[in-house]
Structures are given as C-alpha cells and as structure tokens.
C-alpha cells in the first residue's frame, strides 16, 4: 500500500534523476565545442511498480546511466573521407610549390629556350659579332639555369617529402600506441556495464587523426577496436600496437616496413603518408623523367648541330652543352661546354664569317626530338602535366572537403551538441527538479500534519 514514505522515496529518486540529467546537460554544454565529443543523454527508466492487493502503484523514475549518441557508419565514412582529403591535400601542397617553376615567366625553360634560338638567329645576321656571340653563350647559360631551377624544385620537394614520410610514420606509431592503450580501458568499462563515452570519444578522435595520416580499416572486437592499414598490415589489436619502421631504400628514399620488416611503402595510398609517397615515388619521378629527357634530347640535338659546323678558328664544332652519360638527373647537371663565343660553330665550311651552320642549330627548334615532339612542344606538354596534376589535386581536395563537410553535418546531427536543445533541457530538468522538491516539501508537510493528528486528538 502506498505510503508517505514511498512518496518521499519516489520524490528523492526523481531529484536524483533530475540532478543526473542536469549534470549531463551541463557536460554537453561544456563540451559543445570539444572536437570528437558525442553528446550524452541521461537514460531514465520507470521504476518497477508495487503491486498491492491488485493495485499497481508506480514508484517513480530510475536514472539508469548516461549514453553517448553515435553513428558508427557515418564515423567510418568520415574516417575514409579524411584519408582521401589528407592524401589530396598532401599532393596539392607539394604541387603548389612545384607549379611556379613551370609557370610562364621571364626565366622559365620555355622563355629561355626561345631566347637561345633568338640569339642564334640574331647571330646569323653577323656571325663574327662578338656581342651576338656573347648573347648566345649567355642565353645558353640562362637555359641551363632554368633547367637547374626546375630540376632543383622537383628534387628538393622530393627530399622534403622523404622527410615527411619519416615524420608521418613517427606520428602513426604514437597514435597507434595511444589507441591501443585505450582499448583495455574501454573494454573494462563495457564489461562492468558502464559506458565508456569519454574514452570512446577520445579513441574515435585518435582514429580520425590516424586517418589523416594513412589509410586504416577499423574493426570492432570484444577487446576494443582492431586497426589495420589498407593492405591489412595490423596496427592495433587489443592492447597491442604494432610499430611501423622506416629504412633507407636502394633509391635513397625512406621505405616503410611493418612489424615483420616487410616493405609496405607501395601499398600506402591514402592519408598524408599515402599522398606524400604518391608524390615522392610516382608524380615527381614522372615529372623529373620528362624534364631530364627533354634536357638530354635538347642538349644532344644542339650538340649534334654544333658538330656539323666549324667555329671561328675553322675547328670542327665542339659540344655546346656538357653531356652526362645518363639521362636521370640530366636537367640538374646540364651546363655549358663552351664559354667563348668564337667556339660557336656558326660556319658550315670552316670559312670565317659563314653562318651556314647556324641554320642547323636554329632548326633544332622545329625538329622533333627522339621522343617525338619539338623541344617547345615537349616543354608545353610538361607544363600541361604539371597544370593538370595540380588542377586535379585541387578538384579532389575541394570535392573531399565538401563531402567531409556534409558527413560532419550528418554526424553532428546525431552526435553534436545543440546549445538550444541543451538550454531547453536545462529548463526541463530544472522544472523536474523543482517539482520533485515540491513533492518532498508536500510530503514533509503531510508528515507534519500526520504527526500533529495524534497531538490534536489528545488535547
């Protein structure tokens, strides 16, 4: 049978529930701007009723605990999109630094190449002019400088990216250690029936940070989450994290090894590390190859034309550019083989004042190199490649940013804290607390009246 004591107990439970809900609301408001925080809700449950003589009487509310509101699917999508965006951003950042070397200016390769041919053409009007000859030598030197600048830009980028690989791997190892350390704590809380909301949020945030660095797949197990790279290399299993290592490869570049020493560099395709490796091992070598081939074939063509003629002393034309035996690195090494204008093989027959061979030198401008294109077209193709790569990386970065924004909006719609909602909840739970407190006051009053009943009768 219901009693005042029961009512008082019910009111006290109600006060506890309201207090707990207010605490959750307070925590939500406090963490409204905390990255990775998932809003929590108080879980109320109706207390078991008392059955007395066929009459079932409610016993109020029980605060079961607190629950974080999550959407694991969207969380996974965000991790994947973050990997894609970080990869695109890594490539874009690098390409944006490479691009100026291939942008039309007063000193780019295309301009300097034109200047060399113009100077040769000018020399043809007066083949013995030392001023025009000097202009040819200067134009040749400027062109080699332009090749060096472009080559150095690419190689220094490659070197910087190589350093970035080591830094990324170091960060990955730190993150996997932290993630693994959280696994047993979360599992322990789960096993004891508690909800590890805060720890779960921290772990999710660490996984998101890891996703910025590399591709990871996440699997939920009874021991917590298991993490692996895109190709299945384990990173975290339960409380154990597996350290990645770096070692210098035969090409001088840092290679990434798994815990067994297996080289997994080529399989790392997304995240900052994947984008960095893609740029370092594929994009930049491709551009360097194009540049070196152009420099090599152009230099060889000029030298071949020079060899057809004779210098001002009647000697057979010597090499105009210094030729190294290998194509790789040629653009960075190309230099002038002659520095004296009189060594320009302008003459076709050895006669002083003849300009017959300058036509052969100038013809290099419009003749196809062994690669099949004229020097100008080959350079234009290189500019197109750089522009296209940068443009594509920009588009991918922009697209993933937009996609990521939408996914974050989706996640926020589930897990995000709304100040308006929490403000309303605050009022709701404040009212609930006030009402419960009023019940306590009322019951107290009734107790007083009840106690006074006996006293009044006695009087």
């Amino acid at each position, binding site marked *: 049978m219901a009693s005042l004591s029961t009512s008082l107990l019910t009111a006290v439970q109600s006060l506890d529930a309201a207090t707990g809900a207010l605490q959750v609301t307070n925590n939500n408001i406090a963490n*409204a701007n905390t990255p990775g925080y998932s*809003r929590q809700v108080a879980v109320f449950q109706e207390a078991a009723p008392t059955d007395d003589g066929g009459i079932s009487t409610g016993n109020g509310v029980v605060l079961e605990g607190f629950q974080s509101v999550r959407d694991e699917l969207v969380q996974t999508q965000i991790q994947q999109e973050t990997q894609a965006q970080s990869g695109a951003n890594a490539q874009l950042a690098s*390409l944006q630094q490479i*691009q100026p070397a*291939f*942008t*039309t200016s007063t000193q780019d390769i*295309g*301009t300097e*190449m*034109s200047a060399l*041919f*113009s100077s040769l*053409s*000018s020399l*043809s*009007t*007066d*083949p*013995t*002019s030392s001023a025009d000859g000097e202009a040819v030598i200067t134009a040749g030197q400027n062109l080699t400088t332009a090749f060096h600048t472009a080559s150095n830009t690419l190689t220094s980028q490659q070197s910087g990216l190589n350093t970035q690989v080591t830094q990324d791997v170091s960060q990955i190892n730190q993150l996997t250690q932290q993630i693994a350390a959280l696994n047993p704590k979360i599992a322990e809380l789960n096993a004891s029936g508690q909800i590890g909301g805060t720890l779960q949020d921290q772990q999710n945030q660490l996984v998101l940070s890891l996703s910025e660095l590399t591709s990871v797949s996440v699997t939920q197990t009874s021991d917590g989450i298991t993490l692996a790279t895109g190709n299945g290399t384990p990173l975290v299993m339960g409380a154990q994290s597996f350290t990645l290592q770096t070692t210098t490869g035969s090409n001088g570049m840092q290679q990434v090894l798994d815990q067994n020493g297996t080289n997994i560099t080529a399989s790392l395709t997304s995240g900052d590390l994947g984008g960095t490796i893609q740029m370092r091992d594929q994009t930049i070598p491709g551009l360097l190859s194009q540049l070196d081939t152009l420099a090599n074939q152009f230099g060889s063509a000029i030298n071949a034309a020079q060899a057809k003629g004779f210098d001002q002393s*009647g000697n057979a034309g010597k090499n105009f550019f210094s030729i190294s035996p290998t194509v790789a690195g040629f653009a960075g090494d190309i230099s002038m083989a002659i520095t004296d204008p009189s060594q320009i093989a302008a003459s*076709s*027959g*050895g*006669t*002083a*004042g*003849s*300009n*017959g061979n300058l*036509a052969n030198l*100038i013809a290099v401008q*419009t003749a196809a190199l062994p690669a099949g294109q004229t020097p*100008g*077209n080959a350079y*234009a*193709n290189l*500019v*197109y*490649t*750089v*522009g*296209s790569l*940068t*443009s594509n990386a*920009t588009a991918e970065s922009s697209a993933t940013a937009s996609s990521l*924004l939408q996914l974050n*909006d*989706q996640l*926020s*719609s*589930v897990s*995000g*804290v*709304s*100040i*308006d909602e929490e*403000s*309303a909840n605050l009022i709701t739970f404040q009212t609930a607390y006030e009402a419960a407190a009023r019940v306590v006051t009322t019951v107290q009053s009734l107790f007083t009246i009840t106690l006074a009943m006996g006293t009044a009768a006695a009087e």
Partner: protein
Amino acid sequence: MRVTNMVPDIQYAMQQSQQALSAALQQVSTGLRVNQPSDDPSASANMVISLAASASVDQYTSNIDSVSPLMQTADSAISAMVTSLSAAITLGTAGATGTASTTNKQDMAAQVEGDLSSLIAQANTSFQGVYVFGGSATATPPFVAASSTYTSAQGSAGSPLSPATALTPGSVTTISDATTGDTMTFKAVAGDTIATLSTAITNAVAAGTLSAGTSATINAGGQLTIGTNSGTNGIVVSSNDATLGSMTATSGSQVANAYAYVGDSNVNTVQVGNSTSVATTVAGSQLLTSGANVIGSLNGLITALQSGTSAQITTATTAVTTALNYVGQQRIPLDNTISQLSDQESYLGQDKITLTTQQTSLVGANLADAATNLSQAELINSAVLAAAAKVVPETLLSYLPQ
C-alpha cells in the same frame, strides 16, 4: 535533419566565397584568366607554344631590321659599280673613235684603271664588319690585289723545305687566281707532302682552275714558292699549315690591275620567317669574275686603250657593256630581296597581332566578365558574412529571461 552547429558550414561558405572573391580580384587586377598552369592546363601549354612563336616573330623582325641596311649597302655598292662601268664604257667609246691620240688613250686607260679601283673598293664594301660580296666569307675583304708569286714563311737555306716535307693534316691552302677567277682549295690529309700539294696545283692548272704556268717549287732559300711565272697572271695564296707558315706575296711581284677573289661561292642566309630565308650576302665571284667577268672586261679595256687598235678598243668596250648588263641583271635578285624584306616585315606585323590576339584569348580575362564576376563575388561574400553575423549569435539563451 537535426542541426546542432552551423559554424562549420558558415566557415566553409565564407572560405568558398572568399576564394571566389580572391580569384575574381586577381583576374581584374592582372587582366589574366590564367595565372598559373592549374588555372587552365591546356591554355597554359598552348601559351608556351604561342609565346615561342611570338619570340620567333620578334626575332625575324629584328633580323629584317639588321639585314635590311646590309642589303641596302650591297645595292648601293652595285649601283656605284654600274656608275664605274658606265664611265669606263664612255671612255672606251671615246677611245675607239680613232680621233683620240695615243696620249689621250693612255689617259683614258689610267681613268679606267681608276674606275676599276673604284669598282674593287665597292666590291670590298662592308657593313658593320660584314663584307657583303665575300659570299659566306664575310670576315675579310673578298677582293685582294694579286701577285705573281707567294713565298712561305717557313724554310731556310739551313733547314730547307722539300717535296717530301709532310704537311699538317687538316690544314688548308688556297690559291685564288685573278685571271681564271677560280680558287683551288687544298686540304691536307695524313701522308700529304709538299709534293702532293704540287701535284694538286698541276691538276688545277690542267682543269683550268689556275692559270697555265702556276706551280709550286722550293726556292734557293729553302722556302716554298707558289707562282705563275707570268707578269700578267696574278694569284693570292693563303695557308694555315704550320709547316709552311703564312704565305706572303713576294716583294715587287704584284700584278697591275689584277685582283683575285678570296671569298667563296656560298652565301649567308638569314631566317626572316618560319619557312622564309633570304640571302644576305653576294658571292663576289658570281658578280664580278665568273659570268661576264666584269674585272676581266675592265682589264681588257685598259689593255686595249694602252696599246690596242680602235677595233680592239671597240671590242673591249662591248665586253664592258656586256659586263654592265650582267651586273644590272645580278642586281635584280638583290632588289627583289629588299622588296621581299619589306613585305615580310608587314606580314610579321600582322602575324604578331594574330599571336597577341591568340594569347589574349588563351589566358586573358574578358574584363567585362571579370568585373561582373568580381561584383558577383563581392555580393555573395557580403551575403555570406551578413548571414553569418545574423545566425551565429542567435540561440535560445538570447530569449530566456536573465
């Protein structure tokens, strides 16, 4: 959909609108739609090719500006040669009348000698160091007074050269003959000796390249002497063979009114268009020694005036007239080239405009569009900022009693 926090969306919108504003501002300020290859990779690549074409056009125009005065100089020189030849014809005509005394004819001969000297001076005309009538040998005067014998610097009585003396492989010895107007060029190869050179000279005489009597001998001083053994045939000899040393004309062996052509039969050409080149020099041999042999005709007239009959003077004068007509004909291609240069310069001017238009089309911004884009970007950015300012501070708390 439950909306909890609009700040990320607002920040994204602000970033997008500010990027658009920045891009629009850059287009307006630079006048360019493409400022880097990623703005339009295809246009950037085409721009590289177009700029190279533009540079070529600029250089062709510069070449025309450089060679036009050279061509004008050549044309003026030929005009002056025509004047000299006309003066000689007038003298020859006067000398052939039969009324001129021997003394008068001697004077006339002397005047024709002066005309020949003038003609040679014109033939050695240079413009800024370029000898226009030397063929491709533009570095030195193409017509040189000829001598009957040349002697090597090397060789002495104590250490004489001999037919067996080996020549330096790769060295070149040339003998230009004033009478034939031809030049023999001997390039030594391994194993060649002075005897080989001597044989080559004999063969050149047989072929008519060198005048009869031209030969190579070792003189009493042990030096190599190349001579014509004639008082009227003159040659000019040069050699870069260290074994022989420089070849110099023997003192007192200069042949009067004999000039040998030491240029070559090639010409220098200069590119003035993608597929257009013009000859900028003239082979003096073609102009003055081969064909009508202008120098020879003047020499003939001098000889006729000095000692010939009226008939011989008439014949010599006719030869000079033929030479005059020949020179006039040789001038036509030169004049055509000068005219072609003028036309080409106009064409290049048009080409430059076309290329500039193409470049503007490739990377230039349409200013009207750019201004509109800027205006639109400003509007959008303002709208985004205004919306942000209105939305961000709005919460339920604003409406709750304090």
